[in-house]
């Protein structure tokens, strides 16, 4: 975490929405989903099931993955109903930055 954490007595977090400052990308360990829009049918299953709201939607179409918060769980890949190649969502290996 880059921001200095203020110790307020009583474990009080008094900045609404401050959890956005915490990038959960470091939860990813070796794999991440990759999006290919050419075969995407915009069913929004990935968007519905993503636990981190990390599916980017622009102009009512799925546009990509927000890798600042994507934790690499792979639920989006699992839920995507499209079987036509190239698959809209696949898990790829990712080099882990320590």
């Amino acid at each position: 975490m880059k921001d200095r954490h203020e110790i307020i007595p009583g474990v009080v977090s008094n900045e609404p929405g401050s959890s956005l400052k915490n990038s959960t990308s470091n939860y990813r360990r070796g794999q991440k989903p990759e999006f290919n829009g050419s075969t995407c049918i915009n069913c929004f299953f990935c968007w519905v099931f993503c636990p981190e709201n990390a599916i980017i939607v622009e102009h009512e179409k799925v546009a990509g993955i927000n890798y600042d918060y994507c934790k690499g769980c792979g639920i989006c890949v699992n839920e995507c109903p499209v079987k036509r190649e190239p698959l809209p969502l696949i898990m790829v290996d990712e080099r882990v930055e320590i």
Partner: protein
Amino acid sequence: MSSMRALNGSSAVALAVKQAVPDVVAVHPILPTTLIAKDIAALIADAELDTEFLNMESEHSAMSSCIGASASGGRVFTTAAAQGLAAMHDLLYIASSYRLPIVTAIANSALSAPLAIGPDHSDMMGQSNCGWIQLMSENSQEAYDNIIQAYKIAEENGVRTPVMVGMDSLCTSHTIENVIVENEEAVTDFLGKYDAQNSLLDSDNPKTIGSYCGNDYYFQHKLEQSKGIESSRKAIKEVGKEFGDRFGRYYGYFESYKLDDALTAVVVMGSAAGTVKEWIDKLRSKGEKTGVLKLRILRPFPHQELGETLTQFDRVLVLDRSLVPGTDGGPLFNELKAALYEFENHPQVLSYIYGLGGRDLGLKHLEELEALLGETEDIETAGLKHRQVGYINPGI
């Protein structure tokens, strides 16, 4: 104007709570705390107390409700004992780390198994690590006085730490004694209004309390939390003096009874102190130079003051009303001995465990230990080894 009333410890506590005017009382009373809850419920039914009374499904829920209500800016109260206090265990840590001035009355009882409802300090001893301030009462008067002081200590700026007030179950909670009760306005005035800091209901300053914290900041939070209970050392003394100035009964970390020119001392907590004082009176009349130190504050442990007082004696007899299996001597004994280690003069400290499960401590039982309080040579002639843990009337 104060008045004298015949009250048992439970009613005395309920009256003190009434005079503190809590916003929420959340309870799931277990014997022997049922009379406290009953009295408070009766006061509400008779329109003598206007408070939100929550009948919760367990002690865990009762403490949970207290945490929510206190965090939202309310003055709250709950009561527990034995297994009931144990049921609150995980929440006690949360209440203290949230820095909430919750006051809880404990009717100190034995823990199952086997089931026993008599006086025993095991329940409170078992919660000494959760960051709460712990007060022990000798009788109904002290139970009443301690509840009132508890709110003032807990709500003090810089303290903001929950307080549990103990009194022996049955011996105090269910025994009617003379209690001087104070005028309601005087008590309400003494306590003032609870000024919550960081209330959850302050919608101008929205906040979250108690969220996840990684290992990069947990340590700092615990140190910050400790400042609260450390501040209470001063607050306890100040409130005890203020209470005395106001109502005539002064309180501190402990009561010294006939310790001035004593060579030996007995350390005890709770209702047994009364019996021990009688024993000391008898010994004094026989010419023995001995006295009693009745400990009132268990947390924060007054190690400095206890050390300064006890190191002047040749021998100290520590009476524990709880047994921690796997340790050498009672919990109070162990903590006291550790405190004395820092001082230059080390008296001989002996551990005696008594009254488990509510077994009565009578004068006749104490009289068997007379040799221990006599001249220090007597311990060798009495055949007792230095490190032996004694049991008073264990029945075996």
